[in-house]
């Protein structure tokens, strides 16, 4: 880490999708910018860039955050999971599979954020979930195709039928 208060790049080390990453980031570079522009992980979409739409949602230590509203330097020493890190090889994560099976995708722009918000919810919820639980948990994710119905059905299907494997070292 830089010792001065200057605007020089910040040396950070973090885990991204299970792999160690070292980077020098400009202090104002967001985590979304780091993931997309430096690491080429363009599955993380930037929609509104104002903390509203949730398209940029990633997992930080297992918890969903809006990566447009986190600077890369804040991720130092932490674990990030993006949509690219969910599947196990060719085997989709259960939430991805449920989105596929329930046709919870229309244009697809909100999908990575929706999936990761759902994974965060399922990782923190101890028991079965109601439709209201899922709606509240996805409050920070906008779908402008208005495809919420199938998304909620997909999340409920995972929540109430199968165990969800851990994807990070989060503490929830």
């Amino acid at each position: 880490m830089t010792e001065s208060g200057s605007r020089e790049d910040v040396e950070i080390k973090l885990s991204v999708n299970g792999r160690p990453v070292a980077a020098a980031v400009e202090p104002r570079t967001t985590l979304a910018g780091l993931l997309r522009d430096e690491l080429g992980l363009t599955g993380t979409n930037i929609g509104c860039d104002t903390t509203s739409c949730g398209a940029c949602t990633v997992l930080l230590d297992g918890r969903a955050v809006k990566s447009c509203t986190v600077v890369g330097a804040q991720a130092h020493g932490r674990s990030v999971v993006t949509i690219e890190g969910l599947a196990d090889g060719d085997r989709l994560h259960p939430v991805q599979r449920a989105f596929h099976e329930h046709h919870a995708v229309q244009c697809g722009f909100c999908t990575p954020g929706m999936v990761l918000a759902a994974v965060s919810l399922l990782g923190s919820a101890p028991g079965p979930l109601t439709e209201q639980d899922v709606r509240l948990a996805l409050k920070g994710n906008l779908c402008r195709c208005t495809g919420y119905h199938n998304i909620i059905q997909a999340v409920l299907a995972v929540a109430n039928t199968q165990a969800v494997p851990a994807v990070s070292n989060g503490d929830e």
Partner: protein
Amino acid sequence: MIPAAFGYRRAGDLADALIRLGQGGVTVLAGGQSLLPALKARTARAETLLDIGHLTELSHITDNGSHLAIGATTRHCDLAASDLLRERLPSLAGAAALIADPQIRHMGTIGGSLAHADPAADLILAGIALDASVVLARRDGVRVIALRDFVLGAGRTAIEPGELITEVRVAPDTGPWSHRKFHRDALEWAVVAVAVSSGRVAISGLAPVPVRAPGVEAALKRGAGAAEAAALADAGTDPPTDRTAGADYRRHLARVLTRRALIEIGVAP
């Protein structure tokens, strides 16, 4: 949406943070959920961000008997999920669970929310209902100030240069509570919100900072019903008219939300 350039310094520990703050020129970054959007919109400027978000010594909820002490970098999701808080201060845990959305609750901190002093901030509203206090530390000392004296206006607080919020103190209150807000859409700040905890009533949206409703509290003490007490919710206030809502509408919302909150905690209609 790219902020003006700023520097970044990761605080080594609390003592290091206080030294850096004392030297000036730094803006504290905790969770960043208020600060970073403001920097990106360029409604705020920072020379250098001093990151304290990772300081675990400031992230705790402890029971000190007469009060609960909540560290400044405790995140909203941890307030909402804390067994201790849910048992001893359920209204504060409940308010935290209603902030924004899960993503923001996973990053945002209680200290950051107080320092940002948004007029509609849920934790300030709940804290004013609960007579919370704020601990401010600097290199050469510590002071404790009532939250209602700490928030001075929209975005304005009593923090002096070199000071850092380190802790929020709240006496336990296990009584019935309600936290109700009215907003135009899911992620908007509330137009008017009401927090009730054991007969103490605070309302936001009637003034630049949340205010207590002494008329309602006095009416409850003498045994008034919810409708009678709630009719006094806006008494003595001078609500603003802006593009979000007119003064009369704010008064109406304050009375309706207060009545519903009182009924929710068991006051006769």
